[in-house]
């Protein structure tokens, strides 16, 4: 049996808890709805100076009239205590007051034996803020079941702000103004599909609640173990400190019992009032989420976002329930509040777009030409629009048929519940069905989610969960994977004419609810939904993940259209052109540009499967003038080039992108395509194209301070944020001056709207308002050409200034003995030494190590010979058999890993595998 609840007043925490400053702790007294005196323990960053109305006049005040610019009211959940907010108390600016109470019966607050329900807890908190003299703007910050309590308080504060009579009626509430709300892994209802109710019911029904929550520390241990990484050591002791005796843990059980799962549960009205009330809470909101939380999954985040669609959000990939234990969460709270809640007239931020660039006025509806217009505004609607190179020969479809299919798809999708703003993941290879589905989604007002299959199952799972798709349109493999891996969204199968039996099997295995063909058939002659406008969200496109976990990048319709227009402008594309798109992103653009296009027979997720013969067949099928292909595809085309060049005579433009494109590769390709000009655009998922260069341009540029990517494309601005001694110099403004090395920033109409559900990432990338920070470093030359020198994170900060890696690597790679080189820094930032790690066939086995004196001398001589730019002498040259590269592009060196390895070796540690 559990011991009886302890009856004892609030007390101060014991000294010596990790990261907890005893000077923050204070006690306070309120009177509850039963007229009983309640005693609280709370953290109060102004404990030494805030007005104290409970009688024990605080004497530490330096200025009797001092009041904070802002108060943070932090409410913990179950089974934690105010310790959860210790880092926020420490991180907040001194002109903010941070108050973090231990909820009554929890932490070091009183134990009265009373089971307090949500409504009572909201009253309790309201009384406490009056008792400790909270006035002025307040931001609530909450976790777990602290969420509903804090939101109940917030709704009351908001009412008192907007309704003065209510404000004066509330005990001591006058002068409180709600400035914003921050929520972390919490809930205001049980969304459909959530597993938490089942777990909680099971625990209750099996009689396990008492043993888990009271008799043992099992509930607390569970919560701490949920954190990723696990919370251990001194921090774990801190969380456990108030709950060491069973008699202190009764409220943990009361909390769980207060979750209203049954319809007649007494807390239902209070929770429902909060859940509905926040739909009309016109205040800035931030949701920080640990999506690995086994209880508060993404379903709860989506539910809250549906209620507060204006909220900013950041999902910490890999983080779980105790998301504020994540290193970046606390600074993010401070930064977000500073950006959104510190103006006296704080307004709701317009979703993450508020922090996103607004490069130039977006086009009015009249001048905006939507993507689907390409299917209609064509000289000959009966002309072939898209050709698929199937096993049974080319299959084509006309512009008119595609336009009709797209309309029908839109109506059909609306018919099965695809609402404007719904998210639809498209897992369909380039071809006719993708064009149907894509334009159908857009015409229905949906936002498409584009995930590159090259991310692999794990990366795709992460991306699709983070995007939170409502529907998923996919081919057989995709719907089966979706079901197996638990990807979100109602599944719609795309089964082509030749996938009969396989399609049926997939429909069963994939738990398919709809088929695209049936959806389109059902949509014929149905009324069309209203098409979206230029400001509506068109797509969430995931980055390749080559430089970190894949990030969702949001585009509005006018931005996607602007990208199409930028490409048309840049490459002089006219209605007379015919496109072969062997590069997935560009396969979407042919129809949007209103030109016939074809995808060659290949696996687009594996570019190296493109053969010269398949490319030639594709060119033949539409008499192509444009060929777009990734460098990896071109390498294979050359390796299989047993076709006659006259089959490519009609090609006027060869375009390659997706990874750095060597000039030699383009030159070899042009031997196959005698009438073509070769170009390579520079850009990224967030903005493409940024710059462009032809093979001729590459040759004219010659060697220089990195890779020359050419001048910025028309109507696109490129600027440089100069590097200081150790990092970007915040005091230096953007410049276009030649020769200044720094981070490349861009501004264009066709650039991203923002990162999706990554407020922190977005705030960092758009810290120059209106610009996108690319994370690449480089410089402009006096002819206005852009040179890329590497990634910002790979800049070597020597005592003589920053050094970018690419110019060093290119120079060293010119040596015969060296197949690949990485230039990295070792030592503390600002005083790093340059180290060159080379891949050779003669490196010492098994792990490599110091290069021979001869090779070292060769490398140093090669670098010393460089004059433009001058290159530094490396402190050491190391040698390995192969360097770690990004497997997706086989070209991006993992310099971070190389630097770590070099550091170990040069510190004197034993060699390990790189």
């Amino acid at each position: 049996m559990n011991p009886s609840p302890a009856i004892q007043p609030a007390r101060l925490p014991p000294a010596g808890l990790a990261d907890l400053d005893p000077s923050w702790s204070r006690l306070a007294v309120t009177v509850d709805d039963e007229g009983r005196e309640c005693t609280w323990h709370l953290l109060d960053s102004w404990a030494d100076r805030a007005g104290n109305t409970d009688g024990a006049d605080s004497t530490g005040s330096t200025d009797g009239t001092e009041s904070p610019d802002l108060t943070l009211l932090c409410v913990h959940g179950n089974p934690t205590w105010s310790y959860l907010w210790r880092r926020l108390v420490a991180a907040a600016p001194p002109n903010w007051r941070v108050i973090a109470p231990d909820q009554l019966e929890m932490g070091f607050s009183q134990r009265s034996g009373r089971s307090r329900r949500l409504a009572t807890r909201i009253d309790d908190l309201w009384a406490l803020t009056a008792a400790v003299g909270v006035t002025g703007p307040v931001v609530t910050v909450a976790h777990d079941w602290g969420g509903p309590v804090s939101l109940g308080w917030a709704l009351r504060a908001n009412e008192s702000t907007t309704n003065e009579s209510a404000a004066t009626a509330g005990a001591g509430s006058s002068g409180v103004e709600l400035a914003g709300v921050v929520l972390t892994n919490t809930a205001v209802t049980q969304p459909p599909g959530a597993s938490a109710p089942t777990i909680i019911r099971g625990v209750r029904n099996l009689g396990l609640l008492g043993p888990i929550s009271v008799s043992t520390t099992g509930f607390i241990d569970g919560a701490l173990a949920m954190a990723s990484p696990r919370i251990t050591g001194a921090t774990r002791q801190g969380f456990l400190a108030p709950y060491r005796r069973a008699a202190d843990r009764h409220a943990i059980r009361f909390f769980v019992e207060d979750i209203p799962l049954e319809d007649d549960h007494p807390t239902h009205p209070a929770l429902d009032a909060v859940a509905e009330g926040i739909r009309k809470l016109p205040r800035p909101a931030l949701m920080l989420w640990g999506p690995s939380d086994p209880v508060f999954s993404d379903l709860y985040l989506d539910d809250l976002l549906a209620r507060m669609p204006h909220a900013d959000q950041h999902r910490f990939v890999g983080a779980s329930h105790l998301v504020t234990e994540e290193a970046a969460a606390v600074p993010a709270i401070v930064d977000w509040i500073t950006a959104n809640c510190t103006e006296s007239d704080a307004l709701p931020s317009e979703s993450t777009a508020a922090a996103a660039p607004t490069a130039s006025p977006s086009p009015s509806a009249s001048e905006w030409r939507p993507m689907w217009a390409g299917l209609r505004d064509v000289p000959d609607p009966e002309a072939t629009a898209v050709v698929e190179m199937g096993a049974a020969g080319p299959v084509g479809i006309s512009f008119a048929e595609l336009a009709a299919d797209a309309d029908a798809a839109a109506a059909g999708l609306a018919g099965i519940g695809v609402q404007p703003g719904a998210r639809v993941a498209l897992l369909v290879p380039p071809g006719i069905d993708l064009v149907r589905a894509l334009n159908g989604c857009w015409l229905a007002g949906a936002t498409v989610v584009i995930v590159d299959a090259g991310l692999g199952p794990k990366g795709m799972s992460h991306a699709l969960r983070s995007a939170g798709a409502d529907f998923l349109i996919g081919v057989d493999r995709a719907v089966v994977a979706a079901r197996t891996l638990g990807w979100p969204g109602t599944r719609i199968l795309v089964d082509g004419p030749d996938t009969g039996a396989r399609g049926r099997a997939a429909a069963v295995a994939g738990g398919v609810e709809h088929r695209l063909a049936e959806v389109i058939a059902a949509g014929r002659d149905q009324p069309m939904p209203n098409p979206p406008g230029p400001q509506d969200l068109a797509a969430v496109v995931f980055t390749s993940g080559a430089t970190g976990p894949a990030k969702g990048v949001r585009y509005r319709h006018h931005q996607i259209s602007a990208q199409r227009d930028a490409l048309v402008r840049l490459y002089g594309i006219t209605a007379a052109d015919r496109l072969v798109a062997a590069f997935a992103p560009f396969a979407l653009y042919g129809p949007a540009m209103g030109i016939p296009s074809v995808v060659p027979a290949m696996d687009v997720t594996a570019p190296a499967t493109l053969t010269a013969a398949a490319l030639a067949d594709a060119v033949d099928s539409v008499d192509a003038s444009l060929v777009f292909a990734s460098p990896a595809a071109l390498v294979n085309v050359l390796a299989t080039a047993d076709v006659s060049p006259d089959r490519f005579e009609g090609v006027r433009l060869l375009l390659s992108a997706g990874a750095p494109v060597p000039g030699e590769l383009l030159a070899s390709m042009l031997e196959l395509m005698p009438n073509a000009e070769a170009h390579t655009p520079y850009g990224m998922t967030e903005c493409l194209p940024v710059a462009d260069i032809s093979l001729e341009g590459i040759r004219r540029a010659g060697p220089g301070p990195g890779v020359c990517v050419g001048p910025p494309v028309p109507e696109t601005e490129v600027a440089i944020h100069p590097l200081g001694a150790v990092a970007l110099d915040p005091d230096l403004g953007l410049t276009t001056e030649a020769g200044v090395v720094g981070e490349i920033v861009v501004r264009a109409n066709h650039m991203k709207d923002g990162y999706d559900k990554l407020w922190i990432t977005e705030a960092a990338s758009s810290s120059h308002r209106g610009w996108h920070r690319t994370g690449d470093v480089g410089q402009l030359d006096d002819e206005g050409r852009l040179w890329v020198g590497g990634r910002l994170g790979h800049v070597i900060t020597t005592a003589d200034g920053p050094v970018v890696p690419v110019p060093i690597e290119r120079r060293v790679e010119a040596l015969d003995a060296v197949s690949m080189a990485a230039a990295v820094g070792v030592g503390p930032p600002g005083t790093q030494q340059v180290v060159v790690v080379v891949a050779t066939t003669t490196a010492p086995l098994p792990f490599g190590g110091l290069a021979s004196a001869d090779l070292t001398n060769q490398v140093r001589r090669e670098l010393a010979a460089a004059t433009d730019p001058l290159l530094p002498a490396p402190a050491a040259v190391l040698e390995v058999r192969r360097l770690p590269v990004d497997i997706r592009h086989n070209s991006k060196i993992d310099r971070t890993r190389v630097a770590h390895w070099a550091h170990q070796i040069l510190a004197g540690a034993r060699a390990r595998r790189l």
Partner: protein
Amino acid sequence: MKVLLTGATSFLGAATARALLDASYEVATFQRGALAADLVGNVEDHRGDIADTTAVDNAMSGCDAVVHLAARVSPVGTWAEFEAANVDGTRHVIAAARRHGVGRLVQVSTPSVAPVGHGLVGAGAEPAQPEGAANFYVRSKAVSEIDALAAAGPDLAVVAIRPHLVWGPGDTQLIGRIVDRAAAGRLALVGSGAALIDTTFVTNAADALVAALERAPEISGEALVVTNGEPRPVAEILGRICDAAGLPAPSRQVPTPVAQAAGSLVERIWALAGREDDPPVTRFLADELAHAHWFDQRRTRELLAWQPAVSLDEGFALLAAGLGRGAGSA
């Protein structure tokens, strides 16, 4: 300005005397032995032991500044010997400087006075710490640096300069031993030889001492590490020294733990036997050769307004010339 230089017979001492003369200082020297021939007649030559307060006092008379370089540098010896030469010697210099109203003291120290841990990677000049010092030499230098900096005040500007691994042509200590060892085929690398180490070409170190003397009033109380700012793998440094001497680079590798154990053992044997000669390896030397030792030179260069004038490449060419080999291969 007249400068007293103690320890002018050492390799760095002679170079410092020349640097002071080049900078047009009037130079007095204080040392036990005979000066280098080129200095004789150009400096005021005082002979004596640093433990002899009267001798130190006499030499200090009439000087405006002192560069205190004299020290007992040896891998062997008793604490009493190191204390007398280094701790008491420095106290005598400070006392004499005070008595004679000398305004500037440059204390020549060593980077080893600060804790090394498992190597130093771009390290700054941490405070000297006698506790846990690797040997009596290091401990005595730590105590004397602390004493010297504690003497800084309105009337006496004190700067501690810690040059790391000073070398150059004519060096019988570091270079001489390496070359002898290599010639006897007894030079081996500790571990892989990849650990980055900083070294200092001798004239650069001497220039830095002169710069410290000039800047002392502005930077009094500072301890600064001085190096060439060109850390290189220890195998490369040894290889280039051998190359300059026309000897093959060391190719044998002794695993770090073996070298450390051997160092400890040799130290005990030498102590038990009371041997005065240099042991072939010590624990301290094994650690120095196995782990990175390189330093952040930004603050040093800024405060001293000094840059090394001779690069490593130039230094090795000079070394080769000094060893009678003409230009060594860089």
